[in-house]
């Protein structure tokens, strides 16, 4: 059983552990680090519930080995909140962008990547951007509205924001 020590910078903190080579990133995040905001939905690279940012890029953490993230930056849903909720989190709350909430962490991390690349997306671009994330409750409409809310808020001058 091959093991190696990996150090992954999760939400700004370097976390080291001895892991099996085959350990998936999502299991490192949830089981090893106890950050259970990142969810496991389908486990087959379809649903996007496990989405995290790897060096700023949204990826499905069930389809990356933790050892591939060695020395790199990972941001999970827990890393978004500063002194106040991130505008995306606030948007999902204000606009009822969730019902059961299972897809929400992945949905928000995909949206984060989308807004980082494209701060003012059209509705179509939002729907395209979250097309790798499945929601079985909302029908997506309120998720799109929540992302539009966040995009608008993120473009306001910094002093008007609740903080990030």
């Amino acid at each position, binding site marked *: 059983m091959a093991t190696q020590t990996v150090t992954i910078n999760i939400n700004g903190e370097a976390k080291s552990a001895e892991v099996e080579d*085959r350990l998936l990133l999502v299991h490192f995040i949830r089981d090893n680090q106890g950050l259970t905001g990142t969810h496991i939905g389908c*486990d087959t*690279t379809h649903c996007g519930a496990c989405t995290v940012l790897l060096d700023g890029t949204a990826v499905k953490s069930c*389809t*990356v080995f933790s050892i*591939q993230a060695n020395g790199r930056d990972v941001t999970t849903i827990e890393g978004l909140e500063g002194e106040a909720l991130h505008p995306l989190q606030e948007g999902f709350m204000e606009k009822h962008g969730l019902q059961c909430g299972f897809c929400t962490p992945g949905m928000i991390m995909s949206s984060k990547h989308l807004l980082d690349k494209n701060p003012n997306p059209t509705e179509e671009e939002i729907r395209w*951007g979250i097309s790798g*994330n499945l929601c079985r409750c909302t029908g997506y409409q309120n998720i799109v509205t929540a992302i539009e809310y966040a995009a608008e808020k993120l473009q306001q001058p910094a002093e008007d924001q609740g903080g990030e």
Partner: protein
Amino acid sequence: MIPGSFDYHSPTSLDEAINLLGKLGDDAKILAGGHSLIPMMKLRLAEPTHLIDINGLSDLDFIKEETGYLCIGAMTRESALEVSELIAKKYPILKDTSEVIADPLVRNLASVGGNIAHGDPANDHPATMVALSAEIVVKGPGGMLGGGERTIPIDDFFKGPLMTDLQQNEILTEIKIPIPDGKSGAAYHKLERKVGDYAIAGAAAALQFDGETCTNAGIGLTNVGPTPIRAKEAQDALVGTSVSINDIDKAAELAAAVSQPVGDHRGSSEYKRAVVKVLTARALQTAKDRAEGGS
């Protein structure tokens, strides 16, 4: 789901990766984007005992025009094709193709080389590369035992479902697409049940013209046979014509006739053959429109 145990290797150069592949033998697999391999490992359909991760080889990540070819490095991410200005402007068929592969999250890691090297006839780049008559560059160990670098015409690359001409000790490094002369256009159309699904069927078409006359036609079909299929009769029928609506209809019929779809949960073989006809016609029409300067 947990993959079987393996030893992880992350070479820092292509030569080191090739040496490792030679040394570790049949039980080693190359890990590129991993979005076909890792799901297969989780299902235990693949159980390599060694993984050689080539994600660190940034010299395999490029899109450039060079000596008459568009050259795409094997580790170029699908998402890079989607946002490349060169691709959007001069090779929109590759944007058509990359943006219907799986979903945006998958495309952030999935590689163009992997999409081809996997040898899955349901993947989208193979048919596109058939239509464009691409050449596949692979590298193996040099020296007395032969090998080294070789270039494989796309028509010789795919051997069967998940089987290619790539040898165990070779790595796919680059895809080379001849830059067409003069007036040309190409397009890919895919029908899928939902985002992320494989194609019910897909059709790639590439056309070259001298004035109003078609001088060269390439048609590749996705997921309607054991390998991507070149619709040769349909191509031949177009050369010398103006690619009128009637010519397109005739070619689309010929493409449907040469397809070998198998009925499954995505539809009956009859349905898929009808889809091939429609998609081939649409891809040819878009290719023609693009050749004439439209989008």
